[in-house]
């Protein structure tokens, strides 16, 4: 029979919309509105998983996000497999396949269950004690084995096929939780038009009102009040309702992170809609109406499938029209289970209730139930359960005021609803750094003084009566004090830790933390072994450390520790709650930042031309730069050789647009640069350029580049590609905070100007026909000069500079014109064999001339003198950024690493960049490292391999043979000057 445990009537499910899903390969019928847990129970499925450590059969414990047992793998199709989902949270949807985890070979027959028999040797801290030695075994052997044996789900192997997005939002009041308190808060807060966001993790708002069939509010059925409240809120334009949305993180200054499940409940995932949305809400005021979690009772074998929380039994019956059993025993230490028992009876089930409390303590509950024909056993404890893969009976015994346990009897049943009282969900309050306060009257930690603009309301602060919850929520939402009339709720419970038993406590498994398989015995052992701080007990036993964060177990664990130590609970304290409140997918955190949107991919104006001409690209920071331009059949080595030859022999063209550029304007511009750079600027004439080096205050090279003086009060500064942003920030910092008196303004023009480098003996021949208003003759436009004019009819700042050692120009044009200008140069250059070259050839060409690259020859510990640029320092300057640090004794030591050339004895050996250098390869290990190779290339111009290196006392080692590590050993190499080609630098003047 389909859905054998579905009740014939009632519930909030839509019987007109049947669904079909699969569980462990078997078809399961359900209705729209079911959770997967409800669907499984409706089909009589009790056993849904194996426990973490002992592989004990487990069923569904709760009905919400506190579920510790029913963790399932959910398969929605290729790329849409997601492990560790709580069956109580996942909505039933047509076509999804769910499967249980943590068993082998099958759920019914799990070999791992042998751990349950071995449990006497698997106590708390077992892993710590057993797998300590040898240490190297931990990562390689023990941990993988433990993970395999006691794992959660399996991580998917395919890329996630779903889309995820982010959304920032602001509001006056964010209400977390849409139960009675949350609804009242949202109504009050939105009354005057203020922006309100109401979020609830459930598909429907209402909280307990969704399953409380008998309560009335202000004279109307509670369900009607709920519908009316929602209609009011939905009609208000200033209210945003977010169902299926869990607030999982409460951060500084009322910044709340929430995940909205947008797609999973739909039968078909469409391509347009994201699966989940991360909301980041900044709220002026936050109302936490997050409700409370019911506590399980701690007794022997309290984890058999079919034993669940009492309120959850009620929810399955009333909300989902599912009978979790036909004969249900409620076991309780408090009043709320009486309502559940009454509802179960009303649904036609056979019901018995056992209360640990004496009859006199129980209030009107027993009489109410007996009037309905329910057997009530006050003053009884639970000492065990029977059954294996499903509960078949609850073993109870009378207990007197002194804890003396009487004779046992077994109550046959196929379902148990247990209630050990309630724990306010203070997780978000605690995350907000609010201090918790222990309330003895309700045996719970409740929100104390808030640390942010926050109010907790309703059950989240231990107010359990419906009318009081509504009034509390209303007040938290900012409403003027008002009363609500509502049916009194059955509240109150006797705090119990482990239930009294006649058994040897050492021999029974009474679970405290179901997900991590922590028993009362484990907690006792931890305390006995000296772990008294609750934080230590938590880590030693792992209680509360599973993905459910101990929502159902924290108070029991705390209470046990307090009881054993005979201290009041507040002295034991509570652990700190940390985000996320419930597990969050990586997809949600990542959002759109995947693939092409992971990081901005910055492309220069000539990128498309380069791509069309066969360029291979490399990433330089966020930039994608043309690396080399291989012709068909060429490898990179051949392409780079050809590109270098073209520059040395005729003309090459290169996209240097990514260079950072800063326009420095103002009367004091020269003085400003004078203070920022190590060299002198005051006397640089307009129309001239100078190479500059700047330091940080610590004396180490920070950046370099050519600076042109366009006018007395205007400089065009260039920086390295990677340094563009940080150099501007560095300059702004000094300008604003140290020298605000200087009349200087800085503007980034990195992307205003594209830069086309035209380099080689024929550069002028290519350029000349396209330029107007600039005399290119060597005498009137020498090396290190700058001119303005037009090229191809558009404005240019034309630099005569060279990073290759050849006659060269860097043609700055407004970026959108770069493509046209480049193509004109390309056309003009054809007769000279103009060759596009990439960053690799650029690196080789500059290394042949011994020009440094910041970040390659320097690493933040290199001074100007270290790289042979000490002569640039304007000694006459009283001060510049970093000058004082250069006078530190360590900066003057003769054994500092200095830039030298390295020529391997084998001329065709290209040393590895980063390779270490030693004087004697036969010295004992650890060897004395002298330095490392910073740049290394094959040089066609030199007919051999060349390298630059930083070597301790390097300049005093000219001609010495040192030894450089290689993948197979050491290679001898001779120290040489760090210039390999055109040592006098004459070619640039051609």
């Amino acid at each position, binding site marked *: 029979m389909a859905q054998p445990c579905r009740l014939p009537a009632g519930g909030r499910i839509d019987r007109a919309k049947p669904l079909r899903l699969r569980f462990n390969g078997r078809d399961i019928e359900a209705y729209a509105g079911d959770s997967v847990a409800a669907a499984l129970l409706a089909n009589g499925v009790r056993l849904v998983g194996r426990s973490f450590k002992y592989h004990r059969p487990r069923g569904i414990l709760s009905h919400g996000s506190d579920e510790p047992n029913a963790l399932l793998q959910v398969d929605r199709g290729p790329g849409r497999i997601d492990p560790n989902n709580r069956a109580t949270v996942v909505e039933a949807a047509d076509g999804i396949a769910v499967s249980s985890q943590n068993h082998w070979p099958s759920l019914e027959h799990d070999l791992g269950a042998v751990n349950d028999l071995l449990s006497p040797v698997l106590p708390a801290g077992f892993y710590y004690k057993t797998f300590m030695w040898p240490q190297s075994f931990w990562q390689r052997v023990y941990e993988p084995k433990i993970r395999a044996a006691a794992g959660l789900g399996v991580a998917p192997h395919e890329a996630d096929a779903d889309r995820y997005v982010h959304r920032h939002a602001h509001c006056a009041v964010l209400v977390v939780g849409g139960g009675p308190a949350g609804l009242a808060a949202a109504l009050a807060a939105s009354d005057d038009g203020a922006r309100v966001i109401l979020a609830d993790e459930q598909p429907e708002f209402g909280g307990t009102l969704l399953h409380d069939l008998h309560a009335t509010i202000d004279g109307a059925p509670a369900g009607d009040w709920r519908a009316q409240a929602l209609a009011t809120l939905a009609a208000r334009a200033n209210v945003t309702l977010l169902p299926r949305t869990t607030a999982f993180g409460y951060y500084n200054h009322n910044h709340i992170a929430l995940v909205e499940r947008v797609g999973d409940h739909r039968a078909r995932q469409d391509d347009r809609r994201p699966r989940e949305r991360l909301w980041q809400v900044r709220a002026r005021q936050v109302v936490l109406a997050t409700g409370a979690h019911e506590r399980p009772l701690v007794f022997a074998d309290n984890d058999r499938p079919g034993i669940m929380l009492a309120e959850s039994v009620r929810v399955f019956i009333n909300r989902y029209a599912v009978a979790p059993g036909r004969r249900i025993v409620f076991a309780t230490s408090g009043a709320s289970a009486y309502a559940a028992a009454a509802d179960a009876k009303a649904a036609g089930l056979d019901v018995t209730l056992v209360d640990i409390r004496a009859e006199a303590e129980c209030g009107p509950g027993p009489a109410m139930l007996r009037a309905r024909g329910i057997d009530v056993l006050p003053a009884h404890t639970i000492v065990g359960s029977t059954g294996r893969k499903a509960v078949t009976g609850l073993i109870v015994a009378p207990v007197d005021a002194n804890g003396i346990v009487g004779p046992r009897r077994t109550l046959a049943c196929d379902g148990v609803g247990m209630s050990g009282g309630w724990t306010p969900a203070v997780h978000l309050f605690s995350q907000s750094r609010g201090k918790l306060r222990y309330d003895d009257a309700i045996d719970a930690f409740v929100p104390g003084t808030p640390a942010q603009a926050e109010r907790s309301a309703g059950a989240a602060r231990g107010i359990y009566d419906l009318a009081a919850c509504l009034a509390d929520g209303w007040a938290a939402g900012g409403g003027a004090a008002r009363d609500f009339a509502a049916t009194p709720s059955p509240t109150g419970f006797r705090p119990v830790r482990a239930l009294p038993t006649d058994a040897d406590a050492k021999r029974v498994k009474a679970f405290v933390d179901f997900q991590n398989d922590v028993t009362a015995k484990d907690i006792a052992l931890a305390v006995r072994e000296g772990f008294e701080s609750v934080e230590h007990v938590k880590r030693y036993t792992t209680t509360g450390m599973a993905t459910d964060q101990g929502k159902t177990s924290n108070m029991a664990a705390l209470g046990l520790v307090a009881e054993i130590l005979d201290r009041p609970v507040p002295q034991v304290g509570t652990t700190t709650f940390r985000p996320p409140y419930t597990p969050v997918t990586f997809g949600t955190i990542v959002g759109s930042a995947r693939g092409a949107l992971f990081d901005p991919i910055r492309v220069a104006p000539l990128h498309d031309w380069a791509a069309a001409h066969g360029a291979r690209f490399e990433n330089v920071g966020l930039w994608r730069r043309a690396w080399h331009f291989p012709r068909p059949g060429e490898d990179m080595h051949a392409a780079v050789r050809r590109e270098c030859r073209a520059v040395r022999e005729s003309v090459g063209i290169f996209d240097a647009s990514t260079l950072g550029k800063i326009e420095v304007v103002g009367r004091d511009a020269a003085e400003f640069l004078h203070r920022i750079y190590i060299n002198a600027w005051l006397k640089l004439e307009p129309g001239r350029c100078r190479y500059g080096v700047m330091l940080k205050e610590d004396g180490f090279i920070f950046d370099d580049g050519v600076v042109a003086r366009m006018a007395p009060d205007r400089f065009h500064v260039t920086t390295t590609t990677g340094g563009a942003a940080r150099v501007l920030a560095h300059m702004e910092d000094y300008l604003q905070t140290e020298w605000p008196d200087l009349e200087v303004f800085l503007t980034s023009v990195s992307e205003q100007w594209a830069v086309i480098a035209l380099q080689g003996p024929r550069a002028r021949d290519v350029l000349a026909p396209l330029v107007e208003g600039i005399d290119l003759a060597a005498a009137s436009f020498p090396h290190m000069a700058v001119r303005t004019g037009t090229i*191809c009819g558009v404005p240019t700042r034309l630099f005569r500079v060279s990073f290759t050692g050849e006659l060269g120009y860097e043609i700055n044009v407004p970026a959108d014109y770069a*493509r046209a200008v480049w193509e004109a140069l390309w056309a003009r250059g054809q007769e000279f064999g103009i060759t596009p070259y990439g960053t690799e050839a650029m690196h080789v060409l500059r290394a042949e001339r011994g020009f440094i690259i910041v970040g390659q020859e320097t690493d933040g510990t290199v001074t100007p003198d270290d790289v042979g640029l000490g002569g640039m320092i304007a000694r006459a300057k009283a001060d510049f950024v970093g000058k004082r640090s250069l006078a530190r004794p360590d900066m003057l030591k003769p054994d500092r690493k200095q830039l030298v050339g390295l020529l391997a004895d084998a001329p065709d050996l290209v040393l590895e960049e980063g390779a270490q250098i030693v004087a004697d390869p036969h010295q004992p290990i650890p060897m004395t490292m002298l330095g490392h190779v910073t740049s290394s290339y094959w040089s066609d111009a030199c007919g051999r391999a060349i390298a630059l290196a930083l070597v301790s006392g390097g300049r005093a080692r000219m001609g010495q043979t040192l030894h450089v590590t290689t993948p197979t050993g050491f290679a001898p190499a001779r120290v040489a000057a760090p210039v390999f080609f055109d040592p006098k630098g004459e070619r640039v003047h051609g």
Partner: protein
Amino acid sequence: MAEQAARRTPILAPSAARPEAAISIAPMVPAARFALRLPEAAAKAIGSAAGFRLDMAINRSAAARDGRLAARLGPDEWLLHGPETASEAIARDVEAALAGRHFALVDIGHRNVAIAVAGAHARAVINGGCPLDLDDDAFPPGSATRTLLGKAEIVLLRPDEAPVFRIECWRSFAPYVLGLLEEVGREFAGA
């Protein structure tokens, strides 16, 4: 000699905005743009320059004649905006108006790219990457500010009452900014 002036090749092909659509994300045509820097006190003293108002509150913009607009992005920083053809005139007029003062006028017409975001879901799409409150009370017509969209810095403007936002970013970030807006906007496209 150059036969004719080189053509522009914008990084994003401009397209027409459709403000009536649920969401419209459209790169705009090239424009004249300048970064103007001027000490706060000078701006207060002169009030405006070459028709550009300068003394508005920080993070506010003001429209001027002939489709021009000045947006104050900081105490001493303005983004001047106008039609592409007005570039030289703007430069000349502002230079003349501020002659003798300490100021910097820098052409950034090719540095920045603009994308118009319009439609009923414009705010939701921009808030897919931008952390600012774009509600009318917090970001009324005439607002203009530098901020972030995902991992890119942008200038966000709402020039007037029309529910059209203009996002300016640096040229090389434009494909990312457009891509992020379109990715977030997919949910609303055709809705």
